[in-house]
């Protein structure tokens, strides 16, 4: 008789490998092995996970079409099956996979569209927190502003691209209308977050992404602004802060040292 551990090892290996032989001792009602019956489990596992990716990356799917997407997803599923039963977190490695997926190399922006969709999913499921009101920084002495440390909303994510990925994502998101896009028109960065019930996606101005990423790493406002200027000399601190405040990007402000765990 087969020990349970050995049975499950053989079963799981064959479920994920379509070329593997059906494990012995798995039979139909006549006691005879049946490849077709085992294939139901293979199909459930691989198609089920591929459909979960399709639900998480709808714009990527719309850009490449169902057939291409599911073919790409199947390869990803077998290479990187989920490590937990929490499928809403499955697929965090998918944008990197898309980037290195040779058959998609003619769409160099595709991985960045996937990054926006991943950020959307993470923002959707992130912890709740109440944003600071838009006027929260108005009361601060301008002389101390550079030392302010802004705590970011737990749902906040940044997606950067050398391509107009945000424009392409919007055209291929629900209700979007695809149109020609000039890929040489420059990069687009965006902020994805859910300050309350709904996920919102905002275009970030030049240097804005670098600014937010430095804040996320624990930098004070002044140091983050310097990093943003180094990233892009067009960086405009007051316009960027106004956008972030109206988006609900901050949950707290203080003037102390960075708290443990805030550092990158």
């Amino acid at each position, binding site marked *: *008789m*087969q*020990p*349970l*551990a050995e*049975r*499950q*090892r053989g*079963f*799981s290996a064959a*479920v*994920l490998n379509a070329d593997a032989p059906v494990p*012995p*001792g*798995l*039979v*139909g*009602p*006549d*006691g005879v092995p*049946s*490849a*077709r*019956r*085992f294939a*139901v*489990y293979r199909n*459930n*596992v691989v198609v*089920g*996970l591929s459909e*979960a990716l399709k639900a998480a990356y709808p714009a990527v799917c719309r850009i490449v079409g169902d057939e291409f997407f599911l073919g790409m997803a199947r390869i990803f599923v077998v290479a990187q*099956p*989920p*490590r*937990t*039963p*929490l*499928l*809403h*977190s499955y697929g965090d490695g998918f944008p990197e996979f898309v980037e290195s997926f040779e058959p998609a190399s003619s769409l160099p922006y595709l991985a960045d569209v996937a990054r926006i969709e991943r950020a959307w999913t993470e923002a*959707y*499921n*992130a*912890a*709740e*927190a*109440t944003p600071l009101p838009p006027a929260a920084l108005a009361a601060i002495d301008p002389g101390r502003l550079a030392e302010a440390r802004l705590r970011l909303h*737990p*749902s906040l994510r940044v997606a950067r691209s050398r391509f107009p990925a945000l424009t392409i994502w919007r055209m291929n998101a629900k209700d979007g209308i695809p149109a020609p896009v000039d890929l040489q028109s420059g990069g687009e960065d965006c902020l994805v977050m*859910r300050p*309350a*019930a709904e996920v919102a996606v905002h275009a970030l101005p030049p240097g804005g992404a670098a600014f937010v990423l430095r804040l996320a790493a624990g930098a004070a406002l002044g140091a983050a602004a310097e990093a943003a200027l180094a990233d892009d000399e067009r960086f405009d601190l007051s316009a960027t802060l106004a956008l972030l405040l109206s988006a609900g990007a901050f949950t707290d402000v203080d003037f102390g040292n960075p708290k443990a765990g805030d550092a990158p």
Partner: protein
Amino acid sequence: MIVSTAVSGGHRVSGAIPARAGVGLKAQHYRTIVNDRPNIGFFEIHAENYMGAGGPPHRYLSAIREIYPLSLHGVGLSIGAERPLDRDHLLRLKDLNERYAPGLFSEHLAWSTHETTFLNDLLPVPYTEEALTRVADHIDEVQATVGRQMLLENPSTYLAFEESTYSEIDFIAEIVRRTGCGLLFDVNNVQVSATNQQWDPIAYIDAYPLQHVQEIHLGGHAEEADDKGRPLLIDTHDREVDGIVWGLFRHTVARTGPVPTLIEWDSAVPAWPVLEAEARRADAVLLDAGEGRMQRAAAG
């Protein structure tokens, strides 16, 4: 912290689930349910869909739980696996039980995790002494950790294991005896497995330990064929409940009396009225079963 929703009044209905039809909760229907408050006995959730930190799933579920009793149905604990249960996952189930106070809590006679890989399907368990011991130990651990009785759902299966030494019913009955768990009886799974294994579904129901059944599941299946052209039913939950399954449901509740009964529709999810119509149909069968029992009691 959960930000309250517009409908939140802070008063939650009792968690006790009535012997009526319920519907599996889908994100597509959140708004309709909160706005229109349809007359449904209860909603059931897949526990794993509510294990994120926050967001619309928890916001809507909190609002819906105030209006309706809830059933918590796990699909990822992998009770039938040889490996130890995932303690983190078990604690997440305990948290959901405490947070939403569901009237019923169930999981599957199946496995889905091997080593650290989650296979996202309810894979079948061989009916051996070793598997029985393993499953019973796992259910003991679940009930001790979560602090309440668990219902175990009978599987839909596509093949059999040569090494099995128990019948499915004897296996399940022995688990109930050893662990004190209750049963969730999936009547569609009975039809799927009975067709695929060439059992008589009526004989299966008549031999089942129905006295331990506290909930029933009804769902749709697809019909395919195996290598030899024999019918192979697939448990797809993507369509209406099949006519034969409605018949088996009547047969079951004629024996059990009215039991909380869930309409499961997890894929190709239809507009809300389609689900509500399925629930009405189940409610009518449950009402008949209740009246039949009262008449028999009065006559006897």
